[in-house]
Structures are given as C-alpha cells and as structure tokens.
C-alpha cells in the first residue's frame, strides 16, 4: 500500500494531484467523468472582485503539442462563487482552492477578504502571472517588487494557506520565488502559461483576438520542469509543479525535480478523466519500484 499523502506546509492533500485554474471550471463540469473526491484537490477558475467577460473570440489556437489561449479571466466574480458555487462544493472531500486574480492590489485584497470566512477553502492561489489581462496579472509577476507587493497585501488579508502562482516569462524565476517567499507565501506554483503567438498565414491574421496569448501543454513541459527544479533548490517553502502534465510519468518528472504537488491543466481538455488516471499511474509506478511513500521521490534530482 503506497502512501500518496503530501503536505503543503499545513495544507494536507490526499494525493499530489491538483487541477490547474482555468482548465477545470468549477469542478462540476467534470463530475460526469471522475469522482472529484478522488483528487488531491481542484483549483477553481481565476476569480476576480467583479464579473469579467474576458477577451473577444477567437481565444484559442492549437500549436505543436500545445495550445494558446487568451480567455482573459472570464468569470462571474467572487460574489457569484460564494453564493452559487461554494454551497455545491463545500461538501467535497478533496481540497477546493480558489485562484484569485485582480487588476489592482485592492482587488486581490477584497477577494481574499470575501473568501476568508469560507472554512472549506483552506487555500487560495494568487495569480500574478496571467498573460491575458492588460493591467495586473503578469505585470505583477515579472518583477520581484510587483510579486512581493501582491504577496504582502494578500498575506495580510488571507488567514490560511497562501499559494502564489509564478510566471515563466522572466529571466530569473528563482528571484521572483524568493521575493514571494520573503513576503510570507506558504508555497509557490509554477509555471503559468508562456507568452506566445500564432498566425494564420492563409488569412494573414493573428490566431487570437489579442494577438498574443498563453502557451500551455506538453510543449512547455521541459521549461516547466527546469524552473521547478531551480525554484525547489532556491526556496524553503513547498513547490507545486505544472506545465504540460499528461500522464503519471510527467507528474513524476515534476516531483523528482522537487515538486510536492502538481497541477494538471491542459490535459483536462483532451481527457476529462486524466487526473484520476494520473493518480493511478503514480501509484502503479511506486508499487513497481517498491516506493512506500511518494514523498521519497521528491527532489531526488
């Protein structure tokens, strides 16, 4: 019997597999395919203070082993989440984590304050790395000062586990990670999407209404694994790894590179039951290699 339990500081996960924000809706979209209780947890879509319509269509382009998106944080706002979604998911056995986004520091803080009373929400993931919004988002995530500022402000407003999601579009992600650790983040998750672009050469137009968008999928996995490996060696807080995980093998790459948990994102679009398969593949690997505890594999590279 393999132990898959992992702890992100004081945040307990029954297994290391989470879902990435913006790829799993509010969870219920996948309830026909998997038992949400089997997940380590799921991270609901980026939530902002006010409802957002996001960017105009087209918002998506398929790329080699990946995709570009420019959704732009479309969501119904934090109040809608609290009134309509939270009651449905508060009974879920697995962790429910809310991804928090904003254009201004005050917005991040206001969302944290509204979520604070929800006991079931033991953690939030602060998104300082969305490449698809004009203000805020990635602007905060690409400088140590910006990252530190958002972290410090949300740290004051959020009483429980604070995850900060980092942008890969930087020269030194370890500097950003250290900055958010310094301001009291309980863990970091990386990587968010890479800023990319695709052109329809037949129509001679950009594929996305916003011209540039966020690249995700297996294409970015080597960059993500490298960054997780670097950050895990640079900070003391736990690291959550994501970027192109499609299988248990992929998830184990991140764990061996130093991740305590992983997030599965784009893969949910291709196989809605992939998360549970990944959990089983991780368990099978451990049994095949006589690993009693998944924690033994963390950071062995």
């Amino acid at each position: 019997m393999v132990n898959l339990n992992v702890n992100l500081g004081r945040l307990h996960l029954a297994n290391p597999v989470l879902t990435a924000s913006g790829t799993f809706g509010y969870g219920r979209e996948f309830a026909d395919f998997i038992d949400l209780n089997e997940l380590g947890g799921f991270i609901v879509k980026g939530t902002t203070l006010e409802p957002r319509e996001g960017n105009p269509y087209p918002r998506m382009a398929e790329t080699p082993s990946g995709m570009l998106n420019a959704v732009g944080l479309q969501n119904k706002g934090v109040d809608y989440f609290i009134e309509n979604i939270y009651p449905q998911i508060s009974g879920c056995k697995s962790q429910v984590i809310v991804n928090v986004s904003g254009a201004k520091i005050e917005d991040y803080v206001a969302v944290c304050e509204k979520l604070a009373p929800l006991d079931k929400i033991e953690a939030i993931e602060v998104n300082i790395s969305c490449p698809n919004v004009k203000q805020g988002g990635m602007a905060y995530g690409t400088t140590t000062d910006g990252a530190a500022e958002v972290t410090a402000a949300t740290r004051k407003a959020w009483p429980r586990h604070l995850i900060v999601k980092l942008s890969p579009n930087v020269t030194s992600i370890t500097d950003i990670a250290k900055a958010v650790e310094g301001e009291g983040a309980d863990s970091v998750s990386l990587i968010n999407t890479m800023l990319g672009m695709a052109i329809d050469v037949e129509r001679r137009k950009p594929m996305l209404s916003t011209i540039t968008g966020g690249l995700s999928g297996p294409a970015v996995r080597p960059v993500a694994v490298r960054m997780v490996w670097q950050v895990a060696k640079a900070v003391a807080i736990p690291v959550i790894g994501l970027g192109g995980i499609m299988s248990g093998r992929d998830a184990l790459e991140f764990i061996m590179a130093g991740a305590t948990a992983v997030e599965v994102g784009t893969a949910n679009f291709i196989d809605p039951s992939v998360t549970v398969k990944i959990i089983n593949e991780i368990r099978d690997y451990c049994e095949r290699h006589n690993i009693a505890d998944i924690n033994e594999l963390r950071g062995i590279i």
Partner: protein
Amino acid sequence: MTVVANEAAGSYHLLKVTPADGRQLPEMVPGQFAEVDVPDSKTTFLRRPISINNVDSADNTLWLLIRKTGAGTASLCATETGAKLNIVLPLGNGFSTAATRPLLIGGGVGIAPLLYLARKYNEKGVRPTLILGARSKGDLALIEEFETVGDVFYTTEDGSHGIKGFVTMSEAFTAEHDLIQCCGPMPMMKAVAERARQLGVECEVSLENMMACGLGACLCCVEQDNKGHNVCVCSEGPVFNINRLSW
C-alpha cells in the same frame, strides 16, 4: 469506439462507429456533438468536435460526417475499419423538435446534423423541408438519405445542382414555416438569420466556434449573447435561438 465503416460521401467521409464494448449508445439529441481524439496525427493535439450526423439504433452505430480541413480531420478521414477511436459524447444542447412545419437549412458539411434532426421529426410524424447548399454538386452528401426523410431543395454556388446561388435564394425559404434550423458557415447562418427575421420566422443556428474541451471548462469557444455576455458554444450551444445572440 470501433470504426465499422468509413465511406466517401460527396467530398466528405462518413465514419460509422459503435461502442467497442458492445454497450448501447447513449441517448443523443440532434444538434449535439462528439469530441473525437485523433490518435495518429503528429501535428494534432486537441480533439476534434464533430456533429452527430445520425444514430442508427438498428445496428447501434453513430454516424460522423467529416470534412478534411487540416491534419487532424485528414487523419480521421483516413481511419481504417476496425480502428479504435476515443470519443467523448454526447456534448452540448440540441435543436428543438417541437415545430410542425420546420425548415432545415444546411451549408457545406453543416448539413451533417440535419439528417438526424429530420429523422427525429419523422418519428413525430413531421416531414421537414430542407434546403441543402454547397459550393458545388460534389460537396453535397447523403442525398438519398435526406430525400427519404424530407422534401429537399438544393442550391449550389456554381449551379451544378439545384438552383445557382445561396440557400437564402431557394424557393423553399418562405414564411410558411414555423421554425428555421440552420447549420453551416458563419456568413451563411447570418444571412439565414437575417432573412428569417424579415419573414418573422423563429430561427435556430448551430455554431462551430473553435473549441478545446467541449465541456465548458476552457471558455475558448465563446459567442456573445444578446446581453453582451460571452457564452460557451460547447456547453450552452452549439444550438442557439438567434434571439439569444447579439446578431
């Protein structure tokens, strides 16, 4: 699912698939679609949304009419009998089937969902009128099947079959119908919607916006509704009454 047949149909391919485990196909509503994984294409990453062309309960097969538009659909069109395909279905909402004098309008491969829709009408004792439009005769498919389920009028841009021109020019496009249901290229659907409004006939359109997940999770396939909200074509559509849309 197992591919039991792959037949050329006009300039398209008609794939007939059945559950590999012999299980009964789930109930499907006309207008719904399937997300088909493309196993053998190096350059294809996402599933391909394909509308449900027909469900043959007699031999428990699902029909998918596929047009080669890129590497992914080309790979699907080349699938051999006996091959296995990973298909998520049924997805999305569907066309309504309450009308008594429906006019079904299809353009190009957009004719696909209309066959299953017409059959559902037949089950209710309704024989729909259809206008099938295409660039040319070769782009029309399943003519025999369509003519058994409804009264079919044709338009082709080159006049090679039926009248020369667009579906909106067909003599069958009249106000006698109580509902117009349309699937085809965006410009055609917008023209049909406009004409339907002029005639004062209700109109449903089936949209094909580019999508990733098909489940309402990725929020990529949005269309703007009449309140200015972005709604997912995959989960709130693909079929919309034109009055719900901004157009």
